[in-house]
């Protein structure tokens, strides 16, 4: 998919572990892992909102569009 999830980059910038983020955003570790590894098919606005709030960032910092060369 051309949408890249940069959650791990933002987590590293904020020095936050997956466990800590999971507790703060009230999402399961498996769901966060799906998001982090780019396996997610969709993300709810509510999830994006709470992640942005906890990581103090913009949606654009987490999601990025990159054209895949074929």
């Amino acid at each position, binding site marked *: 998919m051309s949408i890249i999830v940069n959650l791990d980059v933002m987590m590293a910038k904020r020095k936050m572990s997956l466990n800590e983020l999971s507790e703060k955003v009230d*999402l399961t570790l498996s*769901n*966060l892992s*799906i*998001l982090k590894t780019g*396996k*997610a*098919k*969709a*993300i*709810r606005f509510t*999830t994006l909102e709470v992640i942005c709030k906890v990581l103090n960032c913009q949606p654009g910092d987490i999601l990025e569009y990159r054209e895949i060369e074929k």
Partner: protein
Amino acid sequence: MSSKADCIFKALNIVSWIIFVGVCIEAGGFIFNTFFTLLLNPVGAIRFWTEVNLSELYYYNQRDYVTVTSLMIIVAVMRALMFYFIVKIFHEKKLNLSQPFNETVRRFILRIAYLGLGIGLFSFWGAKYSEGLVNKGVKIPDLQYLRLGGADVWLFMGITLLIIAQIFKKGIELQNENDLTV
């Protein structure tokens, strides 16, 4: 799973087992009687199965006898196989009502659909073959007793299940998408 659904599944499981045993006995009986009549004693054709007397057909032409009994055997074995798959899916507890759309259930529906179509086609063939024999003046039991009746119903069931399997395919995609929505 709710207790009501659980109860329904248990009842269906018991009914499936009873039918499975019945169709297995029937298929086994057809196979045994066919070989018994052909190889050991032609008298077996008189009481081939309950209310099925195939003696006239046997003495008319053995090849026709083999064709009719083969079609009966094929249909009976396919029916037994169908109920084997039904019993198997209940036994393996693959029916998960919280996530009903999965590849196992779709494969199960496809198998039942193909078996239904197969039973329908062979029953139809058997019905037409018997009709031809009756037209030649051979006295053979009713299709209902030969277990070759209701070809149209089997075909209808098969086609309906094929359509349901296609809908299931879309359902699996939607469920996967839903599972991967964070």
